[in-house]
């Protein structure tokens, strides 16, 4: 059995761990509020963008010659997956959930005999994927220096994706991220961004006639690359809110577990101290009796 001294040391160390997790929880809560706010503020832009694109694509006259970003290349041999994770750990199942979702998609694609290419955004995703899919990762992007998700970074990722598309390196692009539902629930999402999923657009085609300047095709071909960046930015915002939420609940759990551990250790400590006292007493009494 551990000596009294050892127990004392352990209690102290668990307590200081608890302090750290508590502080991290507090920090995450503050950051969460900010991240959530910016996720909400960013919504109008992507919604408006979506609306304009819906209007445009429903008004497009010549479906055959529609920009490739909208209609696809016609093949689906090469799949590009953009896996968006965090740069920091200690956030519960946040990264593993995305990775799990991504991996099941990867194995589905590979079993269909298609080619897979991966871009990881965030170092944690790269760490987890490189063992199994190391040869498939073509790029690893990380924004450790920037504090908050910003459009500039998203645009960088968007440009890489579009460059690769224009060089015919892939046919279908899917992004993986966590959608923020609330502090304890984040849903891993797989969203196809190239070609644009037209399924959801059919339900709300607007009967609005627009004047276009210049013509539809030109606007579309200008707008679609922007939309890619916007979608990625949206995913980044959702991701950063999810990360903080996930970290907050993970740290909350950790703090609680540490508390339980301290309680248990304290009981053990008290018992063994009492046992030592009793033992000493017995020794004294039996010593006195024998006189």
């Amino acid at each position: 059995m551990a000596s009294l001294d050892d127990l004392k040391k352990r209690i102290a160390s668990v307590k200081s761990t608890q302090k750290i997790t508590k502080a991290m929880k507090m920090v995450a809560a503050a950051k969460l509020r900010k991240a959530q706010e910016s996720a909400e503020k960013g919504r109008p832009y992507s919604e408006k963008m979506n609306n304009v694109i819906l209007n445009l694509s429903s008004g497009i006259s010549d479906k055959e010659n529609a920009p490739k970003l909208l209609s696809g290349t016609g093949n689906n041999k090469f799949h590009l997956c953009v896996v968006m994770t965090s740069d920091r750990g200690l956030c519960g199942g946040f990264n593993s959930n995305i990775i799990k979702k991504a991996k099941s998609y990867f194995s589905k694609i590979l079993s269909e005999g298609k080619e897979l290419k991966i871009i990881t955004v965030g170092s944690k995703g790269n760490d987890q994927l490189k063992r199994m899919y190391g040869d498939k990762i073509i790029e690893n992007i990380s924004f450790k220096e920037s504090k908050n998700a910003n459009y500039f970074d998203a645009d960088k990722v968007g440009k890489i994706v579009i460059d690769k598309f224009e060089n015919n390196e892939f046919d279908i692009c899917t992004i993986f991220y966590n959608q923020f539902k609330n502090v304890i629930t984040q849903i891993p999402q797989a969203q196809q961004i190239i070609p644009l999923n037209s399924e959801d657009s059919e339900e709300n085609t607007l009967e609005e006639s627009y004047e276009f300047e210049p013509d539809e095709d030109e606007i579309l071909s200008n707008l679609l690359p922007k939309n890619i960046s916007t979608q990625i930015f949206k995913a980044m915002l959702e991701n950063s809110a999810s990360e903080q939420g996930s970290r907050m609940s993970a740290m909350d759990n950790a703090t609680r577990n540490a508390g339980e551990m301290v309680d248990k250790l304290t009981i053990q400590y008290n018992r063994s101290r009492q046992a030592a006292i009793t033992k000493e007493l017995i020794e004294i009494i039996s010593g006195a009796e024998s006189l």
Partner: protein
Amino acid sequence: MSEEFKIEIVNPEKSFLVKDDVSEVVVPAYEGEMGILKDHISIISFLKPGIIKILSKSGDESYYIEDGIVEFKNNNLSILTSSIFNIADMDKSKQQDLLKQAEEESGKEEISDQSKYLIDQKIEVLKTLN
């Protein structure tokens, strides 16, 4: 009868500006400057670098914009942009920074004609601001 309509400028981070007493907006549309008044026909166009002028009861404002999409529908003008600056808040050093950036970019060789054109446009506009 009021001759006013609503304008909303959004950038990816937030809703940048909302005003509902606007009488006229001049935007640098792709094929030339375009003035928008109330009851304009529904239009979608995109913007090149330039200056947006907003004339309204509560005062006129101008913004420097680098790119964007403009949509007008039912007397609602929405402008989507990723880079916009209020000219009143812009000081000389900021302008110089932007100008320098643009000039650097235009000096690169691998850019396409279209982006070259846009950057030259940007430089021109920034020079007129100074």
